[in-house]
């Protein structure tokens, strides 16, 4: 179909300027409320670039946009799609960037080939095939870029939600929050063991106040962590076992006999202090009110 390929690309080339005007106008009309998201000059530049790449790609004679001839067009659209996804456009708004060139383009085809119904139909079909695939392609890029964002956020959350904090010299605490499924538990365990090595901590408190469900998998991970920490010379205390969790663990049949457990993180901390031979005493000279200097307490 070399002859028809030439025609479509010729027409695009010859009418580039007025196609651009009509296309930009159509986009502006459709996205009136998007004025704030994208500047007219930027939009015009994107349209101009698309038209300048579309013509040569069509001229290559294939309307399968996955082929190398279409690489520059796909690259351009991928960039546009990604930046619009970030700007908050919806997938259909992004795809309509491509689809909205159809009307002005078909008008030019009609103007040029109007007399030859057969060829007009051929060109419209070829253009439609390519533009439809390109529209879908922008949706694919959109989807992938969203998935990347989700994956990155999950990764960040994993790290965010497992901070190992130092409560005192030699005393670490790991306040766990949320679901402890395989992937996360691995991160939790590794970061704790790492910190035990770095700090030479003797006591590590695993606080599960924020863990909604303790099933056999979570229990097994906890017990493995306790065992591994022990091998590295640190004793673990599991704290934050709420009454309903305690009852459930018992019914489940999980044996926490060999592990020191405490109801709250404060209780666990008190145990840790005692183990280290430390005591918290009240300063007799100071009042309990913030900022009080205790001067008037004689």
């Amino acid at each position, binding site marked *: 179909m070399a002859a028809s390929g030439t025609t479509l690309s010729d027409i695009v080339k010859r009418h580039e300027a007025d196609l651009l005007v009509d296309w930009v106008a159509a986009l502006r009309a459709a996205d009136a409320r998007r004025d704030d998201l994208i500047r007219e000059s930027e939009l015009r530049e994107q349209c101009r670039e698309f038209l300048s790449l579309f013509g040569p790609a069509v001229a290559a004679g294939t309307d399968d946009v996955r082929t190398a001839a279409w690489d520059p067009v796909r690259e351009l659209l991928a960039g546009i799609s990604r930046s619009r996804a970030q700007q908050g456009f919806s997938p259909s708004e992004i795809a309509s960037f491509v689809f909205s060139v159809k009307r002005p383009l078909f008008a030019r085809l009609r103007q040029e080939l109007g007399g030859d119904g057969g060829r007009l139909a051929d060109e419209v079909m070829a253009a439609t095939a390519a533009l439809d695939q390109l529209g879908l392609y922008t949706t694919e890029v959109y989807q992938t870029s969203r998935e990347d964002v989700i994956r990155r956020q999950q990764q960040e959350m994993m790290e965010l939600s497992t901070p190992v904090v130092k409560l005192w010299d030699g005393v670490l605490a790991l306040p766990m929050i949320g679901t402890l499924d395989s992937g996360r538990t691995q991160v939790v365990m590794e970061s704790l063991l790492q910190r035990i090595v770095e700090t030479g901590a003797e006591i590590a408190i695993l606080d599960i106040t924020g863990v909604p*469900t303790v099933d*056999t998998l979570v229990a097994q991970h906890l017990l493995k962590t306790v065992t591994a920490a022990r091998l590295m010379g640190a004793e673990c205390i599991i704290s934050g076992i709420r009454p309903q969790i305690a009852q459930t663990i018992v019914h489940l*049949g*999980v044996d926490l006999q060999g592990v020191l457990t405490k109801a709250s993180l404060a209780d666990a901390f008190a145990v840790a202090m005692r183990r280290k031979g430390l005591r918290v005493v009240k300063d007799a000279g100071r009042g309990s009110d913030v900022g009080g200097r205790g001067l008037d307490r004689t």
Partner: protein
Amino acid sequence: MPTTSPDAARAETLSIAVEADVVRVRQAVRTRAAALGFSIVDQTKVVTAASELARNTLKHGGGGHCRVEPVTAGGRVGLRLVFEDQGPGIPDVRLALTDGYTTGGGMGLGLSGSRRLMTDFDLWSEVGKGTRVTVAKWK
């Protein structure tokens, strides 16, 4: 008094194909149990049993689905959960229900523990066909 919305009375089926589905099952079961007015302790028990059975469906049964179904009988309200898969099945059901028995490096407490956490417990399994565990908790 918790309000029981019409939605809370409808049965719902959730697929179990990936790890995240186990979390979804837990959340759905917790929402239902809370809507039916279960105590916090009973909610926790039901959710924990659901977590065990959903993970078995995924890990041992190769995936399947879970039906979450509010039920009433003799004026009592309950929550029934049905876990079903078309996996390898369990050759010796009695053995599988023994505390500490595991073929997958677990604690071997999921099945037996779920039986203790729930009021009703029924296990059907046929080698080569699959496994169905039906449990219920009554208020």
